[in-house]
């Protein structure tokens, strides 16, 4: 990653939406296009990772709770 994904999932998603809007414009610069696509890919990977981690964590917690019904 060339740039750390800043504050978290919500911020990453917002940046991703901004990049998409720029890429879908007609007059987008090809050079910028490549850079932006690369950044978008990073953000997508970050978000996927976060979602996956969250799911795992929650499932673990719920499992723990179910094991200890005190």
């Amino acid at each position, binding site marked *: 990653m060339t740039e750390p994904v800043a504050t978290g999932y919500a911020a990453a998603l917002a940046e991703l939406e901004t990049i*998409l809007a720029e890429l879908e414009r007609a007059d987008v610069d090809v050079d910028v*296009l*490549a850079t932006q696509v690369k950044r978008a890919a990073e953000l997508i990977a970050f978000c996927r990772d976060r*979602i996956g981690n969250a799911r795992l964590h929650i499932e673990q917690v719920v499992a723990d709770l*179910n094991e200890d019904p005190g």
Partner: protein
Amino acid sequence: MSQVAFDLDLDDGGVPTYTVGELAEAINSSLRRGFTDGVWVRGEIQGWSERGPHAYFRLVEETENGKAAVNVQFFANARMRLRPMLAKHRLQLSDGLKVRLFGHLDFFAPSGQLGLKMSSLDPRFTLGEMALERDDVVRRLVAKGLFDANRRTRVPAAPLRVGVVTSTASAAWGDFTHELDRSGLAFRLRVIDVRVQGEWAVDMVSGALRTLTRHDDLDVVVLVRGGGSKTDLATFDHETIATAIATSPLPVFTGLGHEVDRSVADEVAHSSLKTPTACAAALVEHVLAFQAEVQRVWSSIDAHANRALQQSSASLATIAHGVRRATVSAVERSDDRLGHRRQRLGSAADRALERSADRLVAARTSLGRVPARLEPELRHIEAVASRVRLLDPVHTMARGWSITRTADGTIVRAAGDLATGSSIVTTFATGSARSRVEETNT
């Protein structure tokens, strides 16, 4: 005087010549014929003198034409005879007294003087004259606004500091002090010894009164004397004494020793008592009344204080009882409330625990549903990813598209942007090629 008809030898043209003895005889004979039964004369006594049992004085009248006077002899036998009558009217003959008297004229040959042998006196005249003079004095005092001035002064509550004008050699002084001593009260006396009768009495009494009434450390001034003749009492009818009393800032008490008559001094004094003893008794009475009043007030204060204390004590007991009752009651109520709260606490805790357990179950259930809620998010990310993929030029160039740039790296978007002979760089999906422009068609 008419010509006396003596049978005498005439040796000078018919005018008789008397020997001195004959003349004296003739005068006396003539006087006896002219004033057969004696004569009444009125005037003022002056130059009173006593020689042995006899008394002599001049009877004087001040007239418009000057002074007229006649010598009077008041011999022992006449004095003896008149004494009961004078005593009855309490008259004492002395200088200044106006009298109407009866006597026989007598030319006393040895001294060649005409005199009046006094044999009687009209007491009503003297008394009337005294009354008239007294009335004049009273009238003048009233006109000056002094008549009741001293009666308007206030006797202090306890008149213990007493100024006394009296003759200390008299029984009056003895009676007065005896009465005060008898009371056992702490009277403090300041006395001025004066003559209360005779020539200097008026000046001495009025001077003493003026001196004492100027003292501001006295409560009252007392003027006392024993009994005396009516004419002695006339001293106290004198305007000078009456004025000294009337103008006194201190109340003046009189005790002039008369059961019946009141002098002008008595009239203008704050209080007039019949005797020195009565005068002292009046002062004692004032002080005793004050003592009684003080005692009464003190008793009243004492009673009020005791009543107030009893009431306060009773109120305090009531309050204390109330406090005790209220305290017991409050403690009991607190006990009840505590028990009640203990119960409520138990049940409330139970209910709270139940609610918490319920909420926990619900939370667990919700939590279980969370991963499912991540699915739409993931789908959204995947959609974004496919859109990004579509836009990636790598895929476009893989299908045979290329990018042409000038020598300085500027992307060429139209043939017209190129000059013939210029160098260009073409980028492919893999690799690039440099070439030169031979021709452009726009």
